[in-house]
Each structure stands twice: as structure tokens, then as C-alpha cells.
């Protein structure tokens, strides 16, 4: 039996290459209406009145909903994923540019758009709070007068403050830096949207929607609409990317539901790109002050961080509820450190809500960026090579499982081996020689390293929940009489290839071909409950559930096979994809024969009622900890500030790789993310709160030109607690790559005395850094 793991071609490709995918906007239902949202042009204003009379009179407009209309249904406000509230349609105030004011429903998309201009809104402008650094100043505009603490959301800390302060006091060298991780946006190519179809006769709501977490959405909709949960069906069809953008519940979805209830017809709402960039979940926006303490010999002894987190107008972060700053306290990184302490303060501003998205692994992107920048800056301060400094301080394999000063238990890893491999692949010493030669000629190349550890696969449920829903995921495995299997899972692919990799997981356990396993996902009527796909949790959690279910099936098959052979179950062993009699391996039954028998007239053993089917809910005992070593080579033109990424070497360890082809594809993407985030992507605001970067003309995404052909390497350190030793890969490269790019550019600019420059390193920002007058990159240039 061939091992089902490996670069198996993807089953989902057949429809996509023919243009036969089914994305939400591809769906048209009989009688379907189209919705469009009127959005606030102002960042902060009182709503004096909303007059939709002219819009309602438009011949093709069927309905217009305002905040007042929704309030009558108890739907004007909705809970966010973090226990705050968010306006569905504004009633009292608008709190960010782009906030939803009214919902027009018309017979076609174009008429809906036209009718938006027929709604007249009277605003009383208020001074906006845009600069997060001023949010807690006395006299700052108050974004949330509905909450008791003004613009202050939370304070949170982790680590040992006393021990850290003592370590800093005793250190030979301390390097500190202010750095911004700018606001960006996941920008999946397909925007968000939904078709809501409420059938008043049956009382059932069916939603086709772009959701990475259909079951969680169903539970939320039940709470918001009052409809019982068993009368709600969420179908997430093909998704054109997600990257965290499709985790939250957005006002547009609820407007579509309300409109369908109101009109008795299906209502489709799909956002356009500017709406997406301006109002759906942004990512990052952390203002960080980091400090690193070391001995003169280069031993890192302590880390300290103080962070101001800009959450926008509502606290809508999609992350486990006990962690208001996500997993930021993984900021001690991959190093042996004596002590660490971090403090994070969250504030409201007059900007769109969000913060946790875009492959951030719940703020691990921010944490890794901080520690890897500080490490490079420390190397510079010490006059030490940054690779050497890292090698000195990396955790050693014998130290695992390792508990960090902030409380994480890393499961497994051989870090020095990964770094060594990356350095070899890059030809590091040769690169340094080349750099020196070029510098002598007035050419500037940079070599940037990044070593990251991330924690994925949340769970366990006792520690990790979203709105009280424990983060565990289920799998239901059915085996048909012919031995073909159907696996229903709760996670939702947005391109990661679940239809293939999950089939491989099950096939591997049951001696099947992946072609024999059909994966069902995305439909809450057909799949078990689970918290969805984000935080790289599909393989670690849902994958584990699938494996556990498959092993349960296999054990049930053992019992049936034993009955077929008329032996005791222990007389059988599983070998090469079949149950075989010990000592007589040619006496064997495969799953197809056993399934047929289970459905036949055979006298079944106790515990088997007539099939092999099994379910599992996997509650992960811990996160898994993928890691990697990245090296980025850039060339910088100091005359223009232009940066060219010449090479990107990436060594990743995600434990056992089920489908290496798919794993590598995920890494390719994350490296491109790093280039985009480091060099060109950001959403900035001017001082009146206008969101600049509300289109792809200004929110620039990397193309095939900016991304070099990546050079990938791997090490495999299985996770000791995952059923097949896999760790998850989806976010790793996005986590590790930005620091590599920034470290590279700063390294190139060392001769100019540049010690740090904030992302995005656009040509202008690079040039200003060289001049010693860096730009504050989260605000528009006045």
C-alpha cells in the first residue's frame, strides 16, 4: 500500500481550472435582491437624521433599512468576537470612516448603488481620534462613551516584571527601540459577501457566506436574530482566500438577513474592494517599545516590551477570550532568556475595528517582528554577526519541551540545525564577502535573518475559547459499504487544499487511496461543530480529529475483521493498509471488504451495530510550535530608496508534512506577504480620519515581479502530542518573513548609520531613513 502522504495533486483543482468554482457572488437564486451599504464619509460624527424617502421611491428599490429599522428587530447592534458590541447600522454616532449607515435592497446591483445617493444623512461632525498615541491623553475625543473607561480597552501583561527589571539592571548592554507594526489588511482576492434566504413558512434561514468559521457564525446569528440555531444553515461555498478576513461576522451579513426577513426574498450583499479595505478586519497596528538586554559576550538575558494596541472603534479581535493581546507574550522568541515582561494597552480610535487577522497567529507576527528586530539591533550594538548571535542564543534540542519566561511550553524543535541549514543554503559567508566588496564600490546589499517560533492549533478548550465556545473541532467519518469514505470536518478551506490533505490523512490511516475519501466541509447542516480555520489550526486540530476518527474506524474494522476471521481481535495486526492475522500476513482484509461485511448479514461483534462510522472531537492538549529560519537578501539603491528583494531562503519545520507540495505553496505565499508588508502595504489615515489606502491603487500588493523564486529547505521535528506529528504551516511564513526583509534593508543601510526604519519601506521612507529623518509610517504625510 503506497503511503497516502506526499505531493498528491489536489482534488479541488478540477473545478477551478475550468472556471467552475462556486464563490458566493457566483450564486443567483430565484427572486434574489441585491443589497448595498451606505457608509459614513466621516470618521466621527453624531447622526442627526437619516432620510431614505427618495431612495425608497426609486422604482427598483424594494426596501431600505436604517439603524432605526434594525433596532426594532433588536439587530442594530451585534456582539463582536471579543465580547464588545459593534453597530450593524449606526444609530447614534458614526465612529469610523466607512461605518455602515443604511442598507438599500434593489432588484439589481447597479440600481442599489444608484439608490445610495438618494439617502440623505445629516451629520454633526465631531473631532476624530486618529493618532493612537494620543488616545489616553486627557481631552482626547471619546470614541466609546457607551463604555465606562473612555478610550481605554484593556491593560494586560505577562512575564515576571521584577526578575526582568533586575536582569536589565545587571546587563552589560541594553538596546531599545520604538517600532510600529503598521495597520495592514489581509485582502483576500475575493471580498466578503453573503446571500441570506429566510423562509418565513419553515422559519429557516439559509446563508451562503464567505465564512472561515460557519458553525461559530451560526451560533452568533442565533444569538443576534433570535432564530433557533437548528433553523439556521450556513453554507460556505468556495472561498477566494480568507487569511482571517472572513472570520468575523460583518454588518453586511446581518443586513442581508434582516432584509431577507423583511422582503421575504433572498438578499445578496457583496462588498466592493474599498468597502473591504475600509471596514472589514484590519491587521496589526501595534506601537511597540522593545528592549533587549545582554551580556557583553552576546548572551541575551532579558526582553521587555510595552505595546499600545490600536483596536479601532470596536473591540472586534478574533482571538481566544482570555488573551486580549493574543499570543503576543510569545515575544521571547526562539532564544534562551532568563526573564521577560510585556505590557499591552489597548485603545479605541476612530478607525475600523479588528486587529487580529492576516496570518497573525493571534499577534505572533507582531511578537516575532519585535524580537527579531531587537536581536539584529543587538548584534549591531555588540559588533557581532547576527547569525552568530542567534546561534549562540537559540534553544537547544535537549531543552524541549521548553517553558518560556512568559509561560509557553514549546513542544519540540532543533533550532540550531534549521539555522545552520538556512545559512548553508544561502551561502552566508559568501554573501557577507560579497556585501563587503559591494560596499567598497558604493553598492548596498543587505542580508537579513529571522528565526521564529510560533504557536498554532488553538485549543485546548479549557484555555482557549471564542465567546465561550471552546476551541475544539470535530470530524465525522462515514464508511460506505464499498469501503469509500466521507469525512465531514468543521474547518473551512479558503485555498489550503483541505479536500486533498484531509483525504490523505484519512487514507493514510485506513489503507485507502485519497481518491477514496470525500471531504465535506463548509455546510453546517452536514458537518460537525467546530471553531473554524484560522490561526493555522486546521491540521493541528481538525486534522487530529480526522486522524482520531479514522483510528476509531480502524479499530471498529479490527473487531469486524476478527469476526470475519473468527479470531480474537488481538490476533490481528494492522500492516500495510490491512488487518492481518499475526504470523500469517497473507490472511488479510482491507477496509472495503470489512465495510461490506459490516453492512452484510455477518454476525457482528459487540460494539458494532452495523457500520464502521466514527466521530471525534479533538481537544488539543497544547499548541504546536512550528518554527523556521529565514534569510532575505536585498539590494538597495540609496539614490532612489528602491529596494529589490534578490533572494529569499526559507527553512521551515512544521513537523510531519502530509502534502509537501501544499506545504510549500503555503510558504511561498507567506514569503510574498513578508515582502508586501515590509515594503509596500499599509493603511494610513489623515488627521481628519480619512482612510487612505482604501483601494488597490494605494494599498499595494506584491506582484510576480517583486517576489523572487523562493529557496525552501526543511527540517522535520514531529510534534510529540499531535496524532501524526504534524504542526501546521499556514501562517509561518507570514510570521517569519517581514523581519527578514526589514533586517535585510537595515543591514544594507548600515554604512549610512541607519539603525531602524519602520515598515513599509517604500522608496521615500527608505530615503528619509538614510537622511536621518525617518517618517512615522502610520500617519499620512502632511
Amino acid at each position, binding site marked *: 500500500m503506497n503511503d497516502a502522504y506526499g505531493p498528491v495533486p489536489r482534488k479541488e483543482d478540477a473545478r477551478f481550472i475550468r472556471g467552475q*468554482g462556486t464563490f458566493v457572488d457566483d450564486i443567483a437564486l430565484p427572486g434574489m435582491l441585491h443589497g448595498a451599504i451606505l457608509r459614513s464619509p466621516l470618521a466621527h460624527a453624531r447622526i442627526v437624521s437619516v432620510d431614505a424617502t427618495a431612495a425608497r421611491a426609486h422604482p427598483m428599490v424594494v426596501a431600505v433599512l436604517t439603524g432605526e429599522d434594525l433596532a426594532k428587530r433588536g439587530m442594530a447592534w451585534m456582539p463582536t468576537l471579543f465580547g464588545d458590541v459593534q453597530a450593524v447600522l449606526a444609530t447614534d454616532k458614526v465612529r469610523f470612516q466607512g461605518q455602515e449607515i443604511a442598507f438599500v435592497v434593489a432588484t439589481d446591483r*447597479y440600481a442599489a448603488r444608484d439608490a445610495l445617493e438618494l439617502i440623505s444623512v445629516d451629520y454633526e461632525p465631531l473631532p476624530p481620534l486618529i493618532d493612537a498615541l494620543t488616545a489616553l491623553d486627557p481631552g482626547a475625543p471619546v470614541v466609546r462613551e457607551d463604555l465606562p473607561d473612555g478610550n481605554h480597552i484593556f491593560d494586560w501583561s505577562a512575564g515576571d516584571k521584577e526578575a526582568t527589571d533586575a536582569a536589565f539592571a545587571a546587563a552589560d548592554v541594553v538596546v531599545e527601540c520604538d517600532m510600529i507594526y503598521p495597520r495592514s489588511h489581509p485582502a483576500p482576492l475575493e471580498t466578503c459577501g453573503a446571500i441570506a434566504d429566510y423562509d418565513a413558512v419553515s422559519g429557516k434561514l439559509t446563508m451562503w457566506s464567505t465564512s472561515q468559521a460557519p458553525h461559530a457564525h451560526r451560533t452568533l446569528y442565533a444569538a443576534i436574530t433570535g432564530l433557533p440555531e437548528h433553523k439556521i444553515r450556513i453554507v460556505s461555498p468556495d472561498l477566494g482566500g480568507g487569511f482571517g478576513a472572513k472570520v468575523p461576522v460583518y454588518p453586511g451579513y446581518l443586513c442581508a438577513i434582516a432584509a431577507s426577513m423583511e422582503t421575504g426574498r433572498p438578499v445578496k450583499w457583496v462588498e466592493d474592494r474599498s468597502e473591504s479595505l475600509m471596514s472589514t478586519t484590519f491587521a496589526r497596528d501595534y506601537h511597540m517599545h522593545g528592549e533587549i538586554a545582554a551580556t557583553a559576550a552576546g548572551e541575551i538575558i532579558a526582553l521587555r516590551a510595552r505595546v499600545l494596541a490600536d483596536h479601532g472603534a470596536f473591540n472586534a479581535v478574533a482571538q481566544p477570550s482570555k488573551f486580549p493581546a493574543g499570543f503576543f507574550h510569545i515575544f521571547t522568541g526562539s532564544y534562551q532568556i532568563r526573564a521577560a515582561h510585556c505590557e499591552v494597552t489597548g485603545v479605541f480610535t476612530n478607525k475600523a475595528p479588528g486587529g487580529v487577522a492576516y496570518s497573525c497567529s493571534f499577534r505572533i507576527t507582531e511578537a516575532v517582528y519585535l524580537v527579531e528586530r531587537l536581536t539584529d539591533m543587538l548584534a549591531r550594538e555588540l559588533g557581532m554577526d547576527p547569525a552568530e548571535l542567534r546561534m549562540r542564543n537559540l534553544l537547544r534540542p535537549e531543552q524541549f519541551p521548553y517553558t518560556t519566561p512568559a509561560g509557553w511550553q514549546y513542544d519540540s524543535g532543533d533550532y540550531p540545525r534549521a539555522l545552520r541549514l538556512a545559512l548553508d543554503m544561502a551561502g552566508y559567508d559568501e554573501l557577507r564577502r560579497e556585501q563587503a566588496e559591494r560596499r567598497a564600490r558604493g553598492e548596498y546589499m543587505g542580508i537579513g535573518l529571522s528565526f521564529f517560533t510560533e504557536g498554532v492549533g488553538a485549543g485546548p478548550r479549557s484555555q482557549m475559547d471564542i465567546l465561550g465556545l471552546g476551541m475544539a473541532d470535530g470530524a465525522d467519518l462515514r464508511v460506505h459499504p464499498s469501503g469509500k469514505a466521507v469525512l465531514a470536518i468543521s474547518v473551512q478551506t479558503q485555498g489550503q487544499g483541505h479536500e486533498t490533505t484531509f483525504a490523505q490523512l484519512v487514507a493514510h490511516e485506513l489503507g485507502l487511496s485519497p481518491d477514496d475519501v470525500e471531504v465535506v466541509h463548509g455546510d453546517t447542516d452536514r458537518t460537525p461543530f467546530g471553531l473554524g480555520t484560522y490561526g493555522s489550526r486546521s491540521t493541528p486540530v481538525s486534522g487530529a480529529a480526522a486522524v482520531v476518527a479514522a483510528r476509531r474506524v480502524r479499530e471498529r474494522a479490527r473487531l469486524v475483521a476478527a469476526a470475519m476471521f473468527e479470531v480474537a481481535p488481538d490476533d490481528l495486526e494492522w500492516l500495510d493498509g490491512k488487518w492481518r492475522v499475526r504470523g500469517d500476513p497473507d490472511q488479510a482484509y482491507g477496509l472495503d471488504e470489512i465495510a461490506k461485511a459490516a453492512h452484510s448479514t455477518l454476525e457482528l461483534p459487540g460494539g458494532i451495530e452495523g457500520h464502521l462510522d466514527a466521530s471525534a472531537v479533538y481537544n488539543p492538549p497544547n499548541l504546536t510550535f512550528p518554527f523556521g529560519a529565514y534569510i532575505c537578501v536585498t539590494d538597495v539603491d540609496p539614490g532612489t530608496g528602491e529596494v529589490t528583494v534578490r533572494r529569499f531562503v526559507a527553512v521551515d519545520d512544521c513537523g510531519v508534512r502530509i502534502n509537501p507540495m501544499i506545504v510549500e505553496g503555503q510558504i511561498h505565499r507567506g514569503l510574498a506577504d513578508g515582502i508586501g508588508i515590509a515594503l509596500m502595504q499599509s493603511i494610513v489615515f489623515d488627521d481628519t480620519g480619512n482612510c487612505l489606502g482604501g483601494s488597490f491603487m494605494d494599498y499595494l500588493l506584491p506582484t510576480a515581479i517583486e517576489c523572487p523564486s523562493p529557496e525552501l529547505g526543511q527540517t522535520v521535528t514531529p510534534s510529540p502530542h499531535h496524532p501524526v506529528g504534524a504542526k501546521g504551516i499556514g501562517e509561518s511564513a507570514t510570521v517569519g518573513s517581514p523581519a527578514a526583509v526589514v533586517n535585510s534593508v537595515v543591514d544594507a543601510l548600515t554604512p549610512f548609520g541607519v539603525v531602524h526604519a519602520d515598515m513599509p519601506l517604500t522608496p521615500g521612507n527608505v530615503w528619509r531613513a538614510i537622511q536621518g529623518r525617518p517618517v512615522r509610517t502610520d500617519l499620512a504625510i502632511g
Partner: protein
Amino acid sequence: MKITVTVNGTDYSQVVEPRLLLIHFLRDELRLTGSHWGCDTSNCGACVVWLDETPVKSCTVLAVMADGRQITTVEGLARGGALDPVQEAFATCHGLQCGFCTPGMIMTARWLLDHNPDPSPAEVREAISGQVCRCTGYENIVKSVLWAAKHDGDDGDDADE
């Protein structure tokens, strides 16, 4: 206004508003949903189709401009059920993940190979430089196009009608 457009070899006559974008005409009127849209500003290229044998961003063309002309979309590439080598290439080389940018990439790639049968990797990257992919980092898209270049004309696809 009444327009007549030939799409994938079939004539369609329809009355449309002058402002109707070609991408919406294809998707919403003709129900050819293989071409997609992903932005408002002609940047992303999810909407690339051929207009008179030339790749265009169909979100930036009015349907009325296509009156009397030929359109080819991804749905029109396969011949008699046989995939175009470019389509096969994307599946073979893992050149797609979510599939949303894929039809546009395939149409541009097919046109490139029709005009430059042996492109360099740099030429492939240049050809798709106006189209965004958020999933693949482009590497496997480039590999797919190069694979298609090597296998173009294999498997009887050169036995054209």
C-alpha cells in the same frame, strides 16, 4: 442598447445599459461566472478575458464596447472536454490554491504562449505583473506556465479543428 457579442463561439444578443461593465455582462447576464472581480481600480486582474484575442481587464471595458466583437473566457478554453495545456499545467504544478485569480492567470498565460512559445521565467513574471494572487506567492504560477510551454502541443491538443 442592443448588443451582439460572440462569447466562446456562441452569439448572444441582449439589451444592456451602456454603463454595464463587461465583467458583469459575462457573469450576471450570461452566467459565465468563471471570470471574477476583486477590486474597483483595475489593479487585480481577476477579470481578465480576451477581447478580440487580446487580454483585457473586463472590469474596465463596457459591454457595449464589445458589441460585434469576440470574447473568450476560461470556460471557452477546453476543446471538446479536453483541457488546454495551460489548464492542465496549473493543476499539475500546484499553480492555484483558492482558484479566484486562476481564470485570469490562465487567460494571460494562454495568450503569452500563443505569442511567445518559449518564455523565460522573467517574461512570464512580466506577463502576469498586472494580476494579483494572494495565495501562491506566484512561484507555482510561473512554474505552471513554463510547464505548459514545454507541453504545449502534447496529447493531441495540436490536432485542432
